[in-house]
């Protein structure tokens, strides 16, 4: 099965080519069938590959020659190990569900075939990224998913905010990509190969200087920071919510933003070799987690709450990886992909029901009318809040265990506070949307069935994926790390009180949310009045700590001023110089042309003078000699 793994990304690519070439000929239904069918095949193959990997863990590698540079040759191909078999399934299944869901969500849009074409291109790139056996190929796909993200955020390009968000996402992730690119070059310089195997061997054999390893690991992490929306490059991810909701679920919750985490996990042996790099990953992750969670407390847009939550949870994964909790990080990546995709699709269903209303202050009381969506959304909220037996509980507990056992008490405390904040803001969202009285001015519409079924499918792993942690003899972590030489997590027995603490803290968060928002006491005027206070903690949070404003004043505005100054310089100094030189010769020419007056006698006089000067010149030597 793994031998044909290279086929997996090709089906979406085929669908993309078909849809791009025939975009105007296909009806919406046909286009969605083509794209969904292609992803269905990929998903089926991915599941087959994963099932095969469960019993046979030796990595399968297929390689073809790509380029020859002197005596170096660069190959492309696919490599299937446990980590990317798992990622393959996550990516292709979520993508499949989003493809189906989008048929309902995008109904009536003018450019449905184009939407499916972009979605297919994204699926192709993401699957290719996951399967890449070397860094160069990974980098190519890394950029491709970035482009797809740009295209899909800006899909409704007639909205100025969408255009701006797409640009911002592209530029901010590019900053990270430059770091990754430098890391790729450094690795090739130091190791002489782009392939993971030789890189890890060289790192473990100590062939690369420790400082160089630290530098490479940090630069790889810069790439991951850009893609996964970690502080300080996080601010594009909330803005990316301008894209259609299925895109947010697929790209900005489940798969592409997890690519950064995947990259760190894939390059884990490099990080393991450098304590500084691990510390950086941990602290950036922990800070991002608590920072984004606190901002999530006060957002008004249903998708933005989820977006900040995504940033926060990605920080959690980074925290886990940095605390050597390799399995915990990857596990949380998997569970998060399912419940966050569920939450986004649920939010999309709410938005559809309310005719594209996204402000939670205008929502309320949906529990009575949208019971199915409400239940599904509740499942997602419970999972992300870390209530047993839902999947988020298990993965979060593993992360906190890893932090504790790694001796990072400060990070552990940050993680616990984040868990509390997460429970609070998720249930604030839930209560505001589903409880209380109705505030919607428009009549609700029924959510089409085709949008409900994918959410129900996602609910299965949301509920059940956590039990992977309970497989006998640590089956999951054993399987994931077998043959890779990576430690599953820090050594030691996890303290028995830890699950109790996490559950307790989540319940307290939910309870507080209930007291504040749930009892139907909160009126919409109160919530709407919240951001009015400019210099309060609330104001600070609702402006996301003014990070965007800071960037605007520190980077964007000065850059614009410099650009203006340079424009002035270009327009008046450089262009002036060029024009001045042009004018000089134009005027010289004018003077010259006045001498051409057509008078034969003047010409003769000039010739005579010339002759005299010539003779004088020729005979000058005789006078002075």
């Amino acid at each position, binding site marked *: 099965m793994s031998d044909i793994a290279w086929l997996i990304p090709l089906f979406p690519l085929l669908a993309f080519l078909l849809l791009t070439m025939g975009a105007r000929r296909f009806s919406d239904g046909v286009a969605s069938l083509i794209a969904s069918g292609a992803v269905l095949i990929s998903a089926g193959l991915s599941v087959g590959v994963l099932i095969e990997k469960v019993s046979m863990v030796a990595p399968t590698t297929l390689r073809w020659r790509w380029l020859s540079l002197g005596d170096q040759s660069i190959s492309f191909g696919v490599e299937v190990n446990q980590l990317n078999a798992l990622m393959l399934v996550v990516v292709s299944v979520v993508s499949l569900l989003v493809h189906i869901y989008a048929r309902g969500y995008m109904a009536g849009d003018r450019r449905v075939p184009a939407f499916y074409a972009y979605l297919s291109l994204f699926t192709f790139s993401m699957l290719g990224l996951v399967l890449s056996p070397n860094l160069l190929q990974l980098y190519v796909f890394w950029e491709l998913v970035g482009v797809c993200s740009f295209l899909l955020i800006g899909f409704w390009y007639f909205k100025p905010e969408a255009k701006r968000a797409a640009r911002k996402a592209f530029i901010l992730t590019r900053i990270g990509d430059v770091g990754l690119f430098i890391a790729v070059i450094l690795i090739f310089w130091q190791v002489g190969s782009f392939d993971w195997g030789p890189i890890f061997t060289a790192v473990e054999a100590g062939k690369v200087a420790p400082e160089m390893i630290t530098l490479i690991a940090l630069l790889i992490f810069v790439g991951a920071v850009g893609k996964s929306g970690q502080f300080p490059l996080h601010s594009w991810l909330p803005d990316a919510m301008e894209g259609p909701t299925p895109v947010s679920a697929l790209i900005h919750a489940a798969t592409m933003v997890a690519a950064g985490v995947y990259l760190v996990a894939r390059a884990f042996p490099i990080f393991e070799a450098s304590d500084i790099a691990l510390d950086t990953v941990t602290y950036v992750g922990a800070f991002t987690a608590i920072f984004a969670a606190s901002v999530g407390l006060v957002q008004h847009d249903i998708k933005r709450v989820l977006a900040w939550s995504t940033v926060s949870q990605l920080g959690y994964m980074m925290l886990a990886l940095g605390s050597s909790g390799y399995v915990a990080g990857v596990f949380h990546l998997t569970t998060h992909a399912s419940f966050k995709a569920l939450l986004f699709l649920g939010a999309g269903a709410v938005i559809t029901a309310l005719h594209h209303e996204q402000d939670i202050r205008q929502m309320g009381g949906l529990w009575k009318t949208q019971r199915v969506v409400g239940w599904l959304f509740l499942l997602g909220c419970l999972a992300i809040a870390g209530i047993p037996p839902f999947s988020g509980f298990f993965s979060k507990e593993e992360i906190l265990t890893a932090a504790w056992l790694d001796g990072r008490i400060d990070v552990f405390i940050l993680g616990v506070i984040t868990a509390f904040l997460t429970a609070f803001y998720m249930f604030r969202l839930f209560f505001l949307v589903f409880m209380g009285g109705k505030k919607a001015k428009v009549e609700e519409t029924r959510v089409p069935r085709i949008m409900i079924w994918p959410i129900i499918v996602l609910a299965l792993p949301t509920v059940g994926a956590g039990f992977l942690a309970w497989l006998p003899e640590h089956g999951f972590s054993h399987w994931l790390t077998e043959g890779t030489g990576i430690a599953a997590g820090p050594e030691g027995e996890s303290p028995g009180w830890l699950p109790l603490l996490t559950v307790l803290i989540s319940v307290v968060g939910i309870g507080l949310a209930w007291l504040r928002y749930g009892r139907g006491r909160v009126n919409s005027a109160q919530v709407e009045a919240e951001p009015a206070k400019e210099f309060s903690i609330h104001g600070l949070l609702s402006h996301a700590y003014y990070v965007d404003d800071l960037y605007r004043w520190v980077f964007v505005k000065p850059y614009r001023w410099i650009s203006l100054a340079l424009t002035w310089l270009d327009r008046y100094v450089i262009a002036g110089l060029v024009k001045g030189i042009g004018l000089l010769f134009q005027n010289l020419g004018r003077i010259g*042309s006045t*001498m*051409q*007056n*057509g*008078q*034969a*006698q003047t*010409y*003769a*006089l000039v010739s*005579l003078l010339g002759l005299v000067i010539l003779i004088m010149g020729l005979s000058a030597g005789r006078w002075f000699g």
Partner: protein
Amino acid sequence: MPVTSYLALGAVLFSIGLYGVLTKRNAVLVLFSIELMLNAANINLVAFSKYGLYANQTGQVFTLFTITIAAAEAAVGIAILFALYRNRNTTNADEFDSMKG
């Protein structure tokens, strides 16, 4: 040195002719001045064939040729002038400026 006086006469004639060519407004006078310059050259040729270092007949033969060709040239020049006069109704050299750049 008798040759000096001949050469001096030639030079004076040539200068007068040159001056006429460069300054006269009337195109007919310009043609006359050109004849003067030609004849100044002829005087030089004849003077050298009589008093030159290797005095012989070649210079005089040359002069005969020159006179003949000058006659033809004058005829052509006058003909052109006639044509110009018919077209432009003037013989003023200043007004012939179609060579203007």
